[in-house]
């Protein structure tokens, strides 16, 4: 029999080798355990899909007679797929069917419990679910969450409120839409478009009239991107109000130019010689969309403005006037004695139909 070696180095090597064996065995055990967990997760996932996919799909047309209990470990999965179907389909039928299935399985109560969860994913899933469920009893909790400092949580809660009761929600969230610079603009625009321009016009118009300049600018931007023409009366009042900030006035003119209502022609003309260059520039741009042949002269005059942006907007407006022919534009350029005015028309003569946007 061979006893343990006396030599210190050999003993050390034995220890290292033994340690390596332990590490290798531990790694192997880890790999086996991970494989086992993955297999188990896959089996559970397949079982979940096999059970719930057909029921979710069936709920779109008929209410399933009996449904199995949703295991607690499957709740998030269920809500994920339930919300997926909600967002993949349109129509009142699917809303009724899916919502009935959620209530039948107790997912309305589960979602309300998840509102208090610590994990962000769980809370967001609960917020979105309660919105799709139009769960009136969650209104107060969602209204509180809509004021959360977390931009994703607060905006998702605002969207859920709009899903539950659009009219009441918009009255509540209109000031927040103006105030929350951290809310994603495309998502806010999507929320407002989802609510519809008829419903957003009044609360946003009311808020914009009393808002601070930065808030008003944000609200005007959303009215513009959602093409909320019903808000035009408020925008016109804001434009002519003496106390209105110049940047807000320019934003009003930009919106009016975008909406192209010929009734606004006289109003726009009254700002074409404004002392503020931002206002002059936007008035020129708006004249480009609704201007008449009589406006050519005032736009030509702006080609020599001391501000580059005003000159550019005037040139752009002239080029895009519906009655403007390339020959007439060339003639206007040749008549200019000011070098800056000649230069600013150059790109529009080179590509008369090119949509420049700065």
């Amino acid at each position, binding site marked *: 029999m061979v006893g343990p070696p006396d030599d210190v180095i050999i003993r050390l090597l034995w220890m290292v080798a033994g340690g390596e064996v332990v590490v290798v065995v531990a790694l192997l055990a880890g790999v086996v355990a991970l494989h086992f967990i993955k297999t188990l997760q896959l089996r559970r996932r397949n079982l979940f899909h096999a059970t719930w*996919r*057909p029921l979710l*799909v*069936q709920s*779109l*047309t008929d209410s399933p007679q009996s449904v199995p209990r949703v295991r607690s470990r499957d709740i998030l999965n269920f809500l994920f*797929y339930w919300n*997926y*179907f909600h*967002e*993949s*389909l*349109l*129509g009142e*039928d*699917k809303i009724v069917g899916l919502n009935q299935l959620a209530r039948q399985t107790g997912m309305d109560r589960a979602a309300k419990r998840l509102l208090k969860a610590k994990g962000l994913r769980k809370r967001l899933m609960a917020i979105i679910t309660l919105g799709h469920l139009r769960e009136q009893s969650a209104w107060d909790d969602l209204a509180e969450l809509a004021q959360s400092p977390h931009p994703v949580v607060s905006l998702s809660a605002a969207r859920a409120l709009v899903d539950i009761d659009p009219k009441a929600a918009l009255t509540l969230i209109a000031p927040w839409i103006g105030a929350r610079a951290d809310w994603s603009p495309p998502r806010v625009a999507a929320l407002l478009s989802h609510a519809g321009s008829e419903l957003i016009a009044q609360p946003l118009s009311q808020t914009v009239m009393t808002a601070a300049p930065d808030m008003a600018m944000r609200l005007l931007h959303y009215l513009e991107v959602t093409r909320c023409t019903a808000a035009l009366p408020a925008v016109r009042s804001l434009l002519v109000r003496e106390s209105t900030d110049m940047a807000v006035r320019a934003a009003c003119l930009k919106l009016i130019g975008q909406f192209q209502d010929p009734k606004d022609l006289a109003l726009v003309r009254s700002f074409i010689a404004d002392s503020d260059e931002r206002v002059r520039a936007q008035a020129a741009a708006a004249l480009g969309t609704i201007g008449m042949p009589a406006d050519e002269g005032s736009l030509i005059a702006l080609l020599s403005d001391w501000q580059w942006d005003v000159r550019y907007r005037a040139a752009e407006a002239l080029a895009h006037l519906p009655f403007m022919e390339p020959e007439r534009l060339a003639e206007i350029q040749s008549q200019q004695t000011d070098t800056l005015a000649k230069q600013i028309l150059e790109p529009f003569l080179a590509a008369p139909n090119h949509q420049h946007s700065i």
Partner: protein
Amino acid sequence: MGPTPQTSSQTILIVEDDEDMVTLLQFLLEREGYQAIVATEGRQARTLIETLSPPRLVLLDVMLPYHNGFELVTYIRSKEPWHGVPIVMLTADSAERDIVRALDAGASDYVVKPFNPKELMARLRRFLKTAP
């Protein structure tokens, strides 16, 4: 080369990579008495086009792995005897350019996601009534 596998006159080919969307489309079609064949990516779809007899209709997603929906429309339109099969494309919301591109490539119609199941079936019925 063996005989071409046959599809029945009630067969619809679904080309869609989202499993849940496939389940939903299959359910909607089978409820109306159609049989659905599914390809979940472009290569698989091309293999089916090469080996199957033409189905009654093709329901085709735009975004697919390997060959996108536009490539597949062009391929179907150039392929005898598939070239006359009605193709309805499924496009993502706000992709106006995709719609124009799909119609230019030869698609018969399009449905924008998210869609209303009733509207989808009504659009499909329009082609299924006239298809041979």
